[in-house]
């Protein structure tokens, strides 16, 4: 179930340094000093986040504007939570 209450957002753009490598996205996260290597679909989802915040539902709609989506919204929420666990996304309930 997509929970319409939770907003997902990210820190300002200068919190990270990104670099693409062979279809992988390297992300150096400045506040933590940790390097993350993320693979599809995380970079695609993450690119849509902004500092204002966005619900999973709205993100689903934006993604489906660009891609043929396979899977369901629970998958999307799990990927968003994975980004939050890394500190690349933040939650606002």
């Amino acid at each position, binding site marked *: 179930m997509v929970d319409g209450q939770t907003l997902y957002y990210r820190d300002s753009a200068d919190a990270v340094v990104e670099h693409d490598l062979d279809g992988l996205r390297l992300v150096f996260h*400045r*506040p*933590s*000093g*940790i390097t993350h290597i993320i693979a599809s679909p995380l970079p695609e989802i993450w690119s849509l986040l902004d500092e204002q915040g966005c619900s999973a539902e709205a993100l689903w709609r934006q993604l489906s504007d660009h891609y043929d989506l396979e899977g369901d919204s629970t998958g999307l929420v799990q990927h968003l939570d994975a980004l939050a*666990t890394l*500190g690349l996304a*933040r*939650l606002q*309930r």
Partner: protein
Amino acid sequence: MSAHLLVMLLRTPERAEALNAAQWNGVIATARAERLLATLAYRLKGQVAPDALGPILESARFDAEYEKRLALWEADRAMAALAPLDVPVLLLKGAAYVAASLKAGEGRMIGDLDILVSYERIGEVEAALLAAGWEWVKPDPYDDAYYRQWMHELPPLIHRERDRMIDVHHTILPLTARPMPDAQALLADAVRLPNGLCLLSPEDRVCHAVAHMLADGDLDGGLRNLWDISCLISEIDNISALESRARHHGLHMHLARACRLVDHLYGKGKMRLTWADRLFVRRLLARNNWGSDSRKFLGLGFYVRSHLLRMPPLMLARHLWTKWRNGHRPI
């Protein structure tokens, strides 16, 4: 002795010019052993020193910046984990100093994240941290029961992804120690920073640093702890307010000793030391010019003292017996 030179440089960095190469080698080794090299590196900025020292001090400052970043990130993660509880994240020790940009935080090595929460909420905090990826470090049931019954903190937790430890305190000394600081007052007078993180009031910060150094522990890393105290005291406007706060926590004798030690090692050296103070000074300066401990026997004495401070003798005997039966042999 290199510890003397290290203390002299922290106190009067302009005397760096006078050191020869052999003395520098001793100071660097001692400062690393005491985890004070980065602090020294900040103190020596702008002083005349041999070129070879440049990269050594630069690396030390670099490491300190990295420590600071990690500590603040752990504080951020703790804040995210505790957000649903509406429990403030009250930072103690190093993380607090860097979060508030205090002088004591300059070059401070930090390590674990220490936070203070009220005793009533500790169960909820524990559950929230476990849910956010922290795990118990020790599976040993005796240690666990011991912590829960007698210590001032939860058994240490480590984050499963980031390998960083968090110590959740509900007061600042073990419950078995003789002074009983007023944990309610510590929480009530805490200061909130603009980013939402909290720290103790300036007076309580000194009280905690003093309790940590002199009423708990065996003075290992004491030069660094005393440097913290020296910096924290320098940021106090009203010394008599500090004294009455220390009296409130039952720490006034410890504060008085800390002030004498600070004055003797990092200050003007005007106060009279007692004979016991002199033992402390000898223990604090026990590093030779290879950075190793030159007074092992004195160190052992302070190790026993640290246990006596924490527990009444009968309880100590029971504690050591249980540990011994489980195979623990000191040293």
